[in-house]
């Protein structure tokens, strides 16, 4: 009976993917050199997942203002892992093949631990990622501890970056300091992911 209930609960659990407090769905995606990168390989460290699409004006806001690159550098230097994921479907005109994506990352001075392509959208859907950017934080035990926006100013204006409350910096700061995350679920804003 326990096994039956466990099975029922497990089945229910899979519908909860991408929800704060639940285990983060594991995945393996190819990085820009084709090497597979697996989420569960980073157990023991905080992992930031950033949904990115270079063609999106909201992404341009955060890269054009060096906001995203700053966060990437700040937290990878504190032993966190930063994975930028592009879930634009192959065939969409905003799709960037690996080389083009690598060129763009280099041009904007991006500093994620790895840039991953998810052209089938499988991983994006597993996390119920909706926008670019859409940000997630996975704790060292593999549990999702943050899901939501990059900050609280819904706009494409680079000037807003300075005055906005950056949710990701706040959440990671609190998590790394061993404090509870005060805003663990926030509203993501940006372009729709081109599934």
């Amino acid at each position, binding site marked *: 009976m326990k096994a039956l209930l466990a099975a029922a609960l497990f089945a229910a659990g899979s519908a909860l993917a991408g929800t704060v407090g639940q285990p983060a769905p594991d995945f393996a995606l190819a990085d820009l050199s084709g090497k597979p990168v697996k989420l569960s390989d980073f157990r023991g460290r905080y992992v930031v997942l950033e949904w990115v699409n*270079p*063609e999106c004006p909201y992404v341009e806001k955060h890269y054009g203002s060096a906001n995203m690159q700053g966060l990437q550098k700040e937290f990878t230097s504190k032993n966190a892992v930063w994975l930028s994921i592009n879930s634009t479907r192959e065939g969409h005109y905003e799709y960037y093949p690996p080389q083009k994506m690598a060129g763009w990352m280099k041009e904007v001075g991006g500093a994620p631990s790895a840039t991953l392509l998810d052209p089938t959208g499988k991983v994006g859907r597993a996390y119920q990622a909706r926008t670019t950017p859409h940000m997630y934080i996975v704790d060292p035990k593999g549990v999702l501890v943050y899901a939501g926006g990059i900050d609280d100013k819904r706009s494409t204006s680079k000037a807003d970056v300075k005055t906005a409350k950056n949710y990701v910096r706040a959440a990671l700061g609190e998590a790394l300091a061993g404090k509870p995350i005060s805003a663990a679920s926030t509203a993501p804003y940006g372009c729709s992911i081109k599934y």
Partner: protein
Amino acid sequence: MASDPIYPMCLRGFALALALLSLAVPGIPGMAAPVRTEQVEAELVAERSAPKPGKPFTVALRLQAIKGWHTYWRNPGDSGQPTAIQWQLPPGYRAGPIQWPVPEKLPIGPLANYGYEGEVLLLTDIALPPDAKAPARIAAHAKWLVCNPERCIPQEADLVLDPGAAPRAQQIAYAREALPESAGPGWSFKAGGAAGGVGLEIAPPADFRATTLHFFPYEEGKVHHAAAQALERRDAGLRLFIPAATQPLGALERLHGLLVADGVRGFEIDVPVKGVVIAAPPMAAASSLGLVAALALAFAGGLILNLMPCVLPVLSIKVLGFARGRDAHAMRVHGLLYGAGVLASFLALAGLLMALKAAGTAVGWGFQLQSPVFVALLAMLFLALALNLSGAFEFRSLVPARLANAAASHPHADAFLTGVLAVVVASPCTVPFMGAAIGFALTESALVALGVFAALGIGMAVPYVLLAFEPRWLRRLPKPGPWMVSLKRWLALPLYATVGWLAWVLSIQMGFAGAPGAKDLWQPYSEARVAELVAQGKPVFVDFTAAWCVTCQVNKQLVLSRPETERAFADRGVRLLRADWTKQDPGITRALAALGRNGVPVYVLYRPGREPRLLPEILTREAVQTALADLQP
């Protein structure tokens, strides 16, 4: 880099040039022509050619998007951005808020946006000072995001109302007609937490007709934007099931937004969700079982019921009866009648529960065990059964001879009543682990609820009905003989235990004994206490329990009362609250409903700043440890 940012820059340049032009040549209204981007034509239009003092003056931002492109409503949905207008008005003029027309739901792959395809007029009322002098310069800086399913472009423009332009009274009047109206007298609403969302009960005015209804929330992140909302027609009115967001941003405490009929007529509503004091946690969202899953779960639950300690001994008597051997036809008839008795009893219970709910009583599954009278009768019944199995008496010697003869001469009635008896004795065991299926059943229509209860009954009856039809299986049982007597003696033991336990439940209900677990570690539950502790940043664990709930007691003994579990709670600074549902308690019933449940046990860990986390009903030490470990890295 992307070409997107070029548009706003172009536009800005264009607008700036216009602004400079107007500065250079004051009084020339030529700049008021519509501003055009590749996707959008934007302009300000007014009801009258010039504002008149003391009269309301309505101005609209008209955005005309080309085919396939849209702009956004006040809640843009899963992505996007609402249009914003910054008014530039003469001193003393004041602009009201944008009056948003009824939006459309625009599906984009697995996501949905709320907005407007093609043309939209965003009306704004401008209040004039009494000494206003015409002509006044009405201008605005407008920002909007225009998207098609493939891409999004942020745009902005400086716009001026052309005082010389012809008034667009008719266009404004049409736009005003398309505004949502408030769902005033004639309407009544009731919203309650349901598994995975909120059920909105709607009693519309008598002349109201609609094929479709959809709720658009003003606030984002609480209602699931993309999900379909099931509309159900009931005898009195309608019921709309509104799924909650899967990554909720907070409690869905009220339904504030628009109810849109047939995609065009909007009614503004603001309905509190009764009993929901906290966000539906992720597990509750997931327990929105489908009908098929609920039926399957109920059937499996019914099968398992046969193995429960309160049922097995009683039904063993039945098997022993089979084992005595009868002719095949009589056995089949008896098997079917037994099944009918089980089914009828479950349906009767379901009917009673629904009738009580309909009468407004805050009851949940297990309600029968909240009544001391029922518990007392049940205890006596179990005692009689146990004594009977022990051989202390035969039923025949206790009940009036006429009745005993009746049972003997009416074996059909006997078989049916055994089915009824099985359900009665099973009730302490049905309650605990059927929570999900029964919770689902009670949030659905009466027909669905009856279906789920019927599946439970069929599951419970099926093994014996099959045995009746396939007596060959019975041959594997040892031949009747003296061993049966000793087996009966042994089977009596769990029944005596049940009697003892029911007496304990009764003593609590009658107030003779202290509430269960009245140890210092556990404080009594109240909604306010949870809110207070969580606000202080303290995690709170709530044990929703009842003395009559077997699973609850097992979990308590094996998990919650263990010293290592208590230590683990203490180490994490978790406050422990116990919600005791042994007696009726509308507050606890409401809290359970908010969690998508309708019975106990339920275990919840409230975490400051995060969604509450539900633990499994069959609690394990590992499950508690995992939940606690997740509190703090």
